[in-house]
């Protein structure tokens, strides 16, 4: 099986090289022979998927067969590892994850190449660019980080086991989601670069790539939030985001990708920001590759990073080459990217997009800067410094608040120009709602003048309310018009409104999701925690909760030994639930892992960690966190995913609602739409 896998990935590399060079040659020969050659390159591109899939299948089979003759399987699996984690071993280590990356890229390439009839020439360009990226990753898999490398010496009886932190159900889906996001940005990048190289007329390439970009963005969003949820559920420190370099690596392309999703609308609608959009998508792809480099090169230290290796140099070469190709294509074809229109007013939808893009890019720069500053400091000062949460929070929170403000204001601005009166009329209700909520929250006891974090928290809540009211007022305003003309109920009319323009209203749903997430984040300003040694009957109070230790015990399972406490929880004296915080010791890897117990409500999370035992008396040490509003983050995330899915639903066919306006087509044409 390992030989077959090894051959499959080598064959996939040969196919990729062929798809790259034959495809590129075919693009240079616009005759029948060139077309035939291009078709062979396309078919080779399709075949890459099957070859890489065979390689991946061989690796997974080796994991299930406990084939410890493979070094990768020895290091990332063991006999007693549950089946889902044996499958997840495919992406749990450096070599396997690179093979998995190649597999996902090949899958994206397969879909793209099968849909080549949409626009054969543009798809041929995109196919060649994807083949080039594929060659790089398959070179790594074959020569720098081979997952089919054999063990040296005597074969071990059992494997070293999977990292305990990865033995959690979410880790079976978090990495694939994240990788689908990372890898997926190759597709819009390939289309953008291809469109630039061939001086593609018009903006059709953007229409073609719109769904690709949104799907990719949706996957990356899911990957990031699943990662945050995993960190919250497993790492046992009571938080979900630590500004770790690996977390930052996933956030950076998300920020530029989000900026691209906004600014590309200006290109579609007004033919503006063509250069900016091109570079945004280039930057997003480069940041995806950079993030992969960051986690694998040992450049920065991170608890999430893969083992250090020499493949960092490969990535530096890849980044430099890609950047050079982008610059060359841009310099050669920049005249093709002339803007067709100009901004007309500072108070307009276009300028709100510009400022929104600026803030996204500044946020991305800040994250990049903070992530790399320790390296820069070492070069300049000769010693490393730590750039941790205090830096990122202090610098990014004001930027995030400005972004939230724009999220509230932007949808109220018209394209081209908005009058001050119109802005005042539309904005007064959201602003009043925010002020009312601020008064209410202060009335309930929040003291924004006491601490900076409370002030930021109040601002976040108020701006989130503004976003929410803006979104709902947009739905209600449009819904009323349809309800008035069709006689439908307001709810049904709002549904129809959303179906008529799924992208716009799906976007609003995403904005609403962002507002919910921000409210959840605002809750972190009021986190509480306590730690106590608890014997039989021991009590601990936190907030309105009282935890009583009923018992503590141990267990021995094939894969791990565990010890846990049984805690009865009451709230304001009333029995609520029983929690079982646990600590595990994984036998194969000889590593500890915590399994926090969680009682999550819309109001707050009671998060209990079994930290260990006092060695003198054997009593468990329990740490309790009371984290307000955390569930809002997960609800917001699901809302964002729902909004993204709505954006991808095709618009309903337009049905005339009333008497058609005279000369409508003429006016529409005059308006340039």
């Amino acid at each position, binding site marked *: 099986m390992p030989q077959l896998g090894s051959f499959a990935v080598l064959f996939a590399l040969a196919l990729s090289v062929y798809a790259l060079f034959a495809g590129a040659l075919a693009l240079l020969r616009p005759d029948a022979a060139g077309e035939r050659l291009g078709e062979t390159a396309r078919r080779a591109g399709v075949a890459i998927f099957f070859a890489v899939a065979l390689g991946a299948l061989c690796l997974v089979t080796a994991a299930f067969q406990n084939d410890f003759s493979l070094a990768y399987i020895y290091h990332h699996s063991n006999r007693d590892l549950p089946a889902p984690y044996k499958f997840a071993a495919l992406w749990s280590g450096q070599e396997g994850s690179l093979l998995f990356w190649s597999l996902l890229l090949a899958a994206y390439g397969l879909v793209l190449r099968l849909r080549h009839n949409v626009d054969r020439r543009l798809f041929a360009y995109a196919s060649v660019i994807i083949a080039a990226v594929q060659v790089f990753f398959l070179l790594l898999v074959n020569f720098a980080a081979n997952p089919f490398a054999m063990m040296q010496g005597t074969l071990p009886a059992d494997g070293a086991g999977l990292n305990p932190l990865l033995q959690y159900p979410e880790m079976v889906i978090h990495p694939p989601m994240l990788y689908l996001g990372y890898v997926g940005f190759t597709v819009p990048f390939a289309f953008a670069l291809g469109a630039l190289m061939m001086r593609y007329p018009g903006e059709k390439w953007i229409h073609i790539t719109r769904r690709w970009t949104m799907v990719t963005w949706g996957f990356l969003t899911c990957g990031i939030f699943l990662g945050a949820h995993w960190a919250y559920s497993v790492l046992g420190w009571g938080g979900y985001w630590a500004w770790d370099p690996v977390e930052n690596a996933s956030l950076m392309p998300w920020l530029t990708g989000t900026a691209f999703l906004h600014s590309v609308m200006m290109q579609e609608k007004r033919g503006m920001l063509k250069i900016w959009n091109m570079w945004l998508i280039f930057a997003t792809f480069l940041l995806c590759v950079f993030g992969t480099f960051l986690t694998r090169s040992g450049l920065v230290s991170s608890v999430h990073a893969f083992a250090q290796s020499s493949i960092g140099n490969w990535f530096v070469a890849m980044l430099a080459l890609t950047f050079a190709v982008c610059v060359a294509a841009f310099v050669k074809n920049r005249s093709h990217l002339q803007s067709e229109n100009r901004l007309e007013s500072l108070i307009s939808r276009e300028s709100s997009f510009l400022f929104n893009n600026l803030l996204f890019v500044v946020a991305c720069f800040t994250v990049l800067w903070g992530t790399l500053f320790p390296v820069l400091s070492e070069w300049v*000062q000769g010693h490393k410094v730590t750039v941790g949460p205090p830096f990122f929070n202090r610098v990014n929170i004001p930027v995030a608040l400005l972004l939230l403000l724009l999220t509230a204001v932007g949808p109220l601005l018209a394209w081209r120009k908005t009058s001050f009166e119109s802005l005042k009329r539309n904005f007064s209700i959201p602003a009043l709602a925010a002020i009312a909520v601020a008064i209410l929250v202060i009335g309930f006891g929040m003291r924004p003048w006491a601490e900076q974090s409370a002030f930021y928290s109040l601002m976040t809540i108020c701006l989130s309310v503004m976003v929410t009211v803006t979104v709902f007022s947009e739905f209600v305003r449009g819904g009323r018009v349809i309800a008035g003309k069709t006689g439908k109920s307001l709810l049904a009319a709002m549904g129809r409104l959303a179906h008529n323009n799924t992208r716009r209203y799906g976007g609003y749903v995403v904005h609403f999701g962002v507002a919910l997430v921000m409210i959840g984040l605002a809750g972190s300003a009021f986190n509480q925690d306590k730690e106590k040694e608890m014997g039989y009957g021991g009590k601990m109070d936190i907030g309105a909760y009282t935890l009583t230790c009923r018992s503590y015990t141990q267990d021995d399972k094939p894969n791990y030994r565990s010890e846990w406490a049984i805690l009865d929880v009451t709230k304001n004296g009333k029995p609520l639930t029983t929690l079982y915080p646990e600590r595990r010791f994984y036998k194969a890897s000889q590593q500890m892992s915590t399994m926090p117990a969680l009682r999550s409500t819309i109001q707050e999370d009671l998060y209990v960690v079994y930290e260990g035992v006092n060695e003198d008396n054997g009593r468990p040490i329990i740490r309790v966190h009371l984290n307000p509003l955390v569930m809002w983050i997960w609800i917001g995330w699901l809302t964002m995913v729902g909004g993204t899915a709505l954006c991808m639903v095709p618009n309903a066919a337009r049905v005339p609602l009333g008497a058609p306006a005279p000369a409508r087509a003429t006016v529409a044409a005059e308006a340039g739409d």
Partner: protein
Amino acid sequence: MGNSRKLVFRRAAQIGLLCVAIFAFLGAGDENARFNGLGHRMMCVCGCNQILLECNHVGCNYSDHMREELIAAINHGDNDDLVLQAFIQKYGTTVLAAPTSKGFNRVAWTMPYAVLVLGLGVVTMIVRAWGRKAVALREAAGPTDPAMEPFRDQAQRETEL
């Protein structure tokens, strides 16, 4: 009308800035708050990459001891700078969770704001310059028929993304 609107905007901006400044520089001074504040400005040095007060490794060779040292320093009456300096002396510069605002480390803090201010300036300039060009083009094209405005608005609404 235009001047009074500008005045209202300016006043609102001034009040907003004042509020931000007041809240930004407010701080609590009791010992618990100091312990909490200082503990969140330092990292555990065991390699877990966690903030000192968030390191949850029972039996960690560093964090428990570091917390005790922090409590002792606060009880001793040392001010925040002195406490942090003592920790830097003992554990190195990486014990601080964020760069200081001295020497080259100041660049870490100023650069993001500099980029933000520069970007805001550039975007505002671009918007204004483009706005002036668009007005000039519109004036050169002559007046538009006001009767067409409702239809233009309708077309815009119906084609909005």
